[in-house]
Structures are given as structure tokens and as C-alpha cells.
């Protein structure tokens, strides 16, 4: 009895392997945790320092910072204030201070503005004329009185010299008048910007040809112009420690889940960085898991896409200075949807959507399937096909992994080069790179012609994904899949697929599981997953967003 039990005790080699089995997850888990804590700490928890403040509070918050000498309030004395402004920002050569005397009453005043931000003619002719000759007599003693007296549609009072200076340099035209306790900001900045065009990264055949521009106010106005509603609410926040920028949160007041809104607001408030150059900065600062290869925030240039997302109960984040708006939360299936699915009739929409899912699968898996079939299990594909492929591969001196890597990397380099090339050269480069190199590689016997087909299909598939950034994720993961396939063949490929499944089920975007509605299973949301059900059937908003009101129809 004892002997038979002893005979089952495995040898030392097995115990060493068991040790390895323990060690690897321990090390990986430790690495993951320490990397995660290094950057991701405090994300999504309320009450961890708030840096970003609503714009209305921005000035007072700036004033509250101790130790900055410029945070002095206006003294109310014209000469002192003007001197303070001059001392602080007068060194800028593009700053103009035009002093004048008011004809009626004889008070002094100064118009302060920056070059290039305003229409100079109007400023000089109209405003100066009014200020010098038409302004009614009597002291302008407070902002309210100024509001009534001065014929400007936009009139704000700055309460500290610092915020006044910032606004002036940002492009506001400002006014200091003797007797007035503060500075007045009278004109909005109108710097140079491009004309509004069709979004480059999300072109559609059918749909509005309107894309966001770099100016925040234009972008918000585009959202407003989508239709009449009194429920579209936009809140402005200002973020950035060195250079501040405006962030706008847009949502439908009566639809969005208040808890989601609070969560997003919380994360926006925690942004602590000296400058937000693009909305990608915000995306990376507020996302749930920075170690995941999958994006947890959707970006788009299309106002129509934003507005329909808002109607699903999601929240848009717009940043000044970039045409890319962010939409949260996002799930995997949304990355494969295009607005066109809804603009076309439901049958073509469904077909295109299914096609995209197939393309995503190919873009991710095709090279790994090729490697596992060719190197490990030629017996699993039809014999004739296997013979054909093996015949064409006869002269190829590399194992299939190297063969695939050669072409894959060449394609990736071509793609990267194609973005930077000037437009007239781009297509020529494509022909040289794609056709000639591919053909020559086959002729030279470095790769097999079948592989060229596989790689071409993969590349085209990854272009068919409507979100560019989602395409990058799949490109990245494809290489990981190829390694799995090269080591363990089909078994490795299945493990790779399961690994992605495991990762995706753990991933959340602002509390929404990334794979909803597949898992957790939400049957009513399946109408808009692989299929795009006819409009008449889509009566309710997505369940996963837990909206306040869920009926789309009255």
C-alpha cells in the first residue's frame, strides 16, 4: 500500500516545474500590481485631490494660491491698476495699450489687446469712437452700471489682475476705466483658425460632412446646432497647471445616469498636468486601466456621433484646441460601429457590421492561424490546400514565424511611412512598397505567395475598423498572437484568444464592463450588436448605460 503510494510521488523535475508554475504568476502579479500602483493610484475614487475646477471658480481658486504676487485684486485706482498690468505683461511686444480720454466727463481709460486676435479695424473705429465720444457722462462705478452703459454683448469683469492678464493674453480685448473697480473684458478672442471641413479620420459616404474644429466654442455650437433641446447641458472646467485650457463636459440632463456623471466629473477634477495638448492627454489621465492594450475612451471628430452617444446616456468631453472629442463610457462593440450603420437601411447596416466583426477577427488572428496551420497542423486543413501551400513554400528558407514577421513588419513600416508622406507621393509609395516589394519578395523566394495574400487580407481588414485607435490595438495584439502561435501552434492560438477574453471581461470603462452586452448578457442590447435592428424596433436606450429614462419613443 505504502509502496504504491510512494511510487506515485513525482520526481524532483516535476517539483521544480511546480516551483516554476508558482513563480511565474507571482512575479507577473507583482509586476502588474506595482506598475499599476505606480500610475493608476487613486483613479476613480472620490476625494483624492481636486485640481481642476469649474470655470466660475477658476479665478477665486487662482487667487487663493498663496505666494503668487500677481494674485492681487484690482485696487480700484486707475493709475495703479494700469501700472500693475503693465508691469506684469507689458514686456510682450504684441500687447497694445491704447490710452484715451473720455470726451464727456474727462475720465481716463485704456484699451488693452493683443495683436492678431481681434479685427483691428472694428476695434479702432467703432469701439474707440464710442468710448471717446459717445459714452454718457458720469462715472462708471461698477460692473452693473457698465453693463447698462456700454454697448458690448460680451462683458465680463475680472476680479484679479492675474486672471485679467491671462485673459488679455489669451485674446480678450480688455478695458480699464477710471472709477471702475475692476477690469472689463469686452470682446471674445477671434484668432486665426481653419475652416470647418469633413473629418479626415472618419470619412463617411452618407452622413453630415461636418467635423469638429480646433475652437471649443465652435465645437459646442456645432453640438447645439444638432437640434432644439433644452436638456443638452455643458459644463466648463479649466485644467492645466502652467497653461490652462477649457474642458467641456456635455450630456443630456434628463438621460445621463447621475452616478456616471459624478464619476466622470471626479476624474476630470483630478487631472493634474501642466498642459493638455490634445484630448488624448485627458483620455490617458482618466482611463480605468492604463496597462490594458484596449482603449477605454472613444474619440471622434463627428458631432453627429457625439450627439447620438449623448442620447444613449453617455458623456462627451471636449477640449479646446483639438477637433477630437472624447466619449465615455465605451464598450468593445461600439468601437466597431460606424454612424453609417444607422444612416443606411437596416439590412445593409447589418451586413456591414457583421463584415466588420469578421474583419476584426481576421485582423487579429489571421497571421497566427497561418503560422499554426503551416508550422504545426497542416493535417487540419484540406489536403489539397495544404499541398498547394507547402509547394509554394518550398524555397522559403525561414520558419513561418520569421516569414510572417518579415512581411508584417514591412507592412507596418509602409503604413507608418504613408502617414508622413506628402499627399502626392503617398499612393506612389503604396505602389512601390506594397506591390513591388511584395512581388519581389515572392520572386526572391523569401516569402510564399500565399502568405502575401494572408498579410494583405490582414492589413485591409484592419483598415476596415472604423476607429483608427481600435485598429492600432488589434495590430499590436496581432504580434502577441503570432508569438503564441509560434510557440504552441493551435493550442497557443486558443490560449491567446482565451487570454484576450479573460482580459476583456475584467476590463471596465467607467464602471461599464467592456464586453457588454455579450457578457454580462443584455439581450435587449443585442439589437444593436451584430445586427442593426430596424429603427422601429430600437425603442429603448441601451440598458448598460442605466439611463434615467429609457424610452426613445413617446
Amino acid at each position, binding site marked *: 500500500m505504502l509502496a504504491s503510494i510512494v511510487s*506515485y510521488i*513525482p520526481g524532483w523535475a*516535476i*517539483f521544480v*516545474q*511546480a*516551483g*516554476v*508554475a*508558482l513563480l*511565474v*504568476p*507571482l512575479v*507577473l*502579479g507583482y509586476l502588474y500590481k506595482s506598475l499599476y500602483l505606480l500610475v493608476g493610484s487613486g483613479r476613480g475614487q472620490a476625494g483624492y485631490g481636486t485640481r481642476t475646477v469649474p470655470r466660475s471658480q477658476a479665478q477665486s481658486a487662482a487667487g487663493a494660491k498663496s505666494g503668487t504676487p500677481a494674485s492681487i485684486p484690482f485696487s480700484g485706482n486707475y493709475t495703479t491698476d494700469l501700472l500693475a498690468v503693465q508691469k506684469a505683461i507689458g514686456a510682450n511686444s504684441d500687447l497694445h495699450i491704447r490710452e484715451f480720454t473720455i470726451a464727456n466727463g474727462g475720465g481716463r481709460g485704456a484699451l488693452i489687446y493683443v495683436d492678431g486676435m481681434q479685427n483691428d479695424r472694428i476695434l479702432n473705429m467703432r469701439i474707440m469712437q464710442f468710448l471717446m465720444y459717445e459714452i454718457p457722462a458720469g462715472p462708471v462705478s461698477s460692473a452693473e452700471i457698465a453693463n447698462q452703459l456700454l454697448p458690448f454683448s460680451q462683458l465680463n469683469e475680472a476680479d484679479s489682475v492675474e486672471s485679467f492678464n491671462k485673459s488679455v493674453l489669451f485674446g480678450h480685448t480688455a478695458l480699464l476705466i477710471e472709477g471702475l473697480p475692476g477690469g472689463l473684458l469686452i470682446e471674445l478672442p477671434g484668432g486665426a483658425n481653419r475652416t470647418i471641413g469633413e473629418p479626415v479620420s472618419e470619412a463617411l459616404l452618407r452622413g453630415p460632412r461636418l467635423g469638429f474644429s480646433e475652437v471649443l466654442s465652435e465645437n459646442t455650437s456645432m453640438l447645439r446646432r444638432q437640434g432644439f433641446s433644452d436638456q443638452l447641458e455643458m459644463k466648463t472646467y479649466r485644467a492645466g497647471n502652467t497653461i490652462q485650457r477649457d474642458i467641456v463636459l456635455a450630456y443630456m440632463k434628463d438621460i445621463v*445616469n447621475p*452616478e*456616471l456623471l459624478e*464619476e466622470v466629473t471626479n476624474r476630470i477634477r483630478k487631472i493634474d498636468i501642466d498642459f493638455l495638448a490634445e484630448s488624448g492627454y485627458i483620455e490617458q489621465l482618466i482611463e480605468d486601466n492604463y496597462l490594458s492594450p484596449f482603449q477605454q475612451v472613444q474619440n471622434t471628430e463627428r458631432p453627429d456621433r457625439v450627439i447620438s452617444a449623448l442620447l444613449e446616456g453617455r458623456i462627451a468631453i471636449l477640449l479646446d484646441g483639438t477637433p477630437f472629442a472624447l466619449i465615455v463610457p465605451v464598450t468593445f462593440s461600439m468601437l466597431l460601429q460606424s454612424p453609417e450603420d444607422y444612416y443606411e437601411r437596416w439590412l445593409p447596416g447589418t451586413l456591414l457590421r457583421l463584415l466588420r466583426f469578421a474583419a476584426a477577427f481576421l485582423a487579429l488572428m489571421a497571421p497566427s492561424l497561418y503560422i499554426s496551420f503551416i508550422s*504545426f*497542423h497542416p493535417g*487540419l*486543413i*484540406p*489536403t489539397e490546400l495544404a499541398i498547394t501551400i507547402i509547394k509554394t513554400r518550398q524555397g522559403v528558407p525561414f520558419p513561418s514565424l520569421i516569414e510572417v514577421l518579415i512581411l508584417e513588419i514591412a507592412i507596418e513600416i509602409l503604413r507608418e511611412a504613408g502617414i508622413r508622406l506628402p499627399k502626392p507621393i503617398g499612393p506612389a509609395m503604396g505602389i512601390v512598397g506594397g506591390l513591388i516589394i511584395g512581388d519581389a519578395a515572392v520572386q526572391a523566394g523569401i516569402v510564399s505567395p500565399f502568405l502575401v495574400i494572408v498579410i494583405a487580407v490582414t492589413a485591409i481588414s484592419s483598415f476596415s475598423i472604423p476607429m483608427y485607435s481600435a485598429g492600432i490595438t488589434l495590430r499590436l495584439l496581432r504580434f502577441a498572437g503570432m508569438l503564441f502561435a509560434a510557440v*504552441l*501552434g*493551435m*493550442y*497557443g492560438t*486558443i*490560449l491567446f*484568444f*482565451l*487570454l484576450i*477574453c*479573460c*482580459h476583456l*471581461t*475584467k476590463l471596465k470603462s*467607467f*464602471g461599464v*464592463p467592456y*464586453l457588454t452586452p*455579450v*457578457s*454580462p*448578457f443584455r439581450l435587449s442590447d443585442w439589437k444593436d450588436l451584430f445586427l442593426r435592428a430596424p429603427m422601429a424596433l430600437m425603442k429603448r436606450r441601451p440598458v448598460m448605460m*442605466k439611463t434615467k429614462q429609457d424610452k426613445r419613443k413617446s
Partner: protein
Amino acid sequence: MFVRTDDKITATQAAVFLNNTLLGAGILTLPRSVSESVKTPDSWISVLLGGAIVMLVVFIMVKISQQFPGKTVFQYAAQITGRVFGGGLCVLLVLYFIIIAGFEIRTLAEVTLFFLLEGTPIWAVILPFLWLSTYLVYGGINSIARVFTIVFPISIMILLISFILSVRLFDINHLRPVLGNGFPPVFAGLKSTVLVFTGVEVTMTLVAFMEKPKLAVKAMLGGLAIPLGLYFLTVVMVIGGISVDSAITSTWPTIDLMRSFEVPGFFFERMEFPFMVIWLMQMFCNFSSFFFQSTLGISQIFKIKIHPIIYAMVPVLFLSAMLPKSMTDLFAFGDAIGKMGIVLFLLLPVLLSVIWLIRVKGLKQHV
């Protein structure tokens, strides 16, 4: 609640969880093991009968679990019978889960080595699988249930397609005569058909995780009915396809069935490949489920945090998988697991229910 922080699963998820826990190695081996003991084509009756018995067992398990809402068997066993005795029972259950997990992963490795990766060292197959499962189990019951919901429809679909395509081999004469030797062979087959449902013990922990424990009976019986139906289908199609005699002699009769017909004009020609794919994924679910149950058990019996136990469990599971020295050992191992299952069934739900009934109804104690 927009952000969910509780570890609860819905009734559907619970049903899928149970289904994926049960549907595993049996698909490949059941036709052989049941035919070996029945020796007549009546094995399908054995499957149905065994399924009915297991349904009854599950019913008892759900009922006793529902008396302790939010508590798993590892917690309420101690409540019913006292810490030492209950703890002992639960340790047995955990050991049982560990052994099943080892058995599952070893079966997987053997099949993979035989069909897909000849000549690869066995640890190279087992270790990545084990690590991946660790990653999944680390995410808790919610992640596991979600992965199961993804795998479940894929495997059901491909299984059904495979069986539909194998209809061309199906010969009803292979299934005749019905009850040619009367009932004794059917009862002889019960042993192996009950074994195929080893792992239903997870019911006693699943109920605790359900959002609405009232739906437990429905969910669990539903979760049991699907693998029962599939096992029934497997036995009927395999025996109808390749006859009882070849089912007995073949090691993996279901794969033999898949290999024995070709689908012309289809990319794969043979259904063997997609079948292997879903079977591997199913085994992954299977294994992860037992992995999770055993860590949960240890954590709750000894009141330790679950995450260190997950790590500690990895080498234990690996050793448990490496214990059998050959295929014969492995199958003997499987039989032993079945017997353990019956003993554990008598010990846990039955004994617990009886003691609970005596204490609450008889002695009017408050448990």
C-alpha cells in the same frame, strides 16, 4: 448603482456557470466509459437515468443552500455540524475539487499532446494553461462567469453543428435493440453516467453568489439540463455513428467520430478541428471553475484572504495533474473521482440536510 462592486451573478450566469463546470472531459470519454459497462446500445437510457438522479441531487443541494442565503457550503457546513466536523467535510470537498481540476488539466494535456502537439513536453502544455486560468480566477466569480458566457454559445453552436453534420454516419440500427438484455445493463451503466456529472457540488457554492437566490432551483436545473442534453446527444450520435464495439475500443470515441467523415467544399473538411477548439475552451472553463471553487473553499474554511491562496494553489494543481503516470492511471483516476463524488454526496448534502432537519425541526434549535 452604476458601478457594481458586489460579487453577485445573475440566474442566467449561474446556469451557464454550472453548465460549463460539468461539460468537459466527458464529451470525449463518456461514450466509451458508458459502453464499457453497459455493453449494449442502451447507454443512452443510462445517461438519461443518471441525469435524472443528478437532478434530484442538485435539487437537494439547492434546497439546503437556500436555507443559508449568501453563505457557501464552506460556511454553513460548520454552522450545521460544528467547526471541526464541518471543516473536515469541507476540506474533503476542497481536496475533491483539486483532484478533479488535476484530472481535467491532465486529460486536456493528453488530448492536446496526442492530436495537436506531438512531442511537446507535457509541462509546456499544462503551465501556460494553468497561468491563464490563474489570471482568470484572480478576477473573481464575476470575471469567470463572464468568460463562461462568451465561451458557452460558441461551444454549443459548434457542438450542435458537428453533431448535425455527423448525421450522415448515423445508423439507427447501431442503437438497436432497445433493452435487448433488459434493465440490468442500464443500471450497470449508471455508475459511469453519474460520474460524468462530477462537479455538481459547485451548486452548493453557486447559490450563495446568486443575486436572486429564489431563482436557484430553476437556474441550477436549467444549467444541468443543458449538459445532460448534450451528453445524451453525444452518446446517441457516437454510438449511432460508430457502433458500440468501436466506441469501446477507441480511446477518444467522439474525436474518432469527428474524424470519420468529411465535409466536402468546407474550409476544414473535417469537423475535428473546430471540435477540438471548443473542447479546449470548454476544458478551460471547467478547470477554472474547479480552481476557483477550491481556492474559495480554503479561503472560507480557514478564513484567509483569497488572493495568496490562488497563487499557492498553482503548484498544488500542477502536482495533482502530474500524479497519474499513464493513460490507464488517468482513467482509473477518473473512476476514483466518480466514487469519491458519490461518497461526498452522501456526506455533504444528505448528511447536512439530515442533521439540519433534526436540529431545526426535531430539536427546534436555531441554526
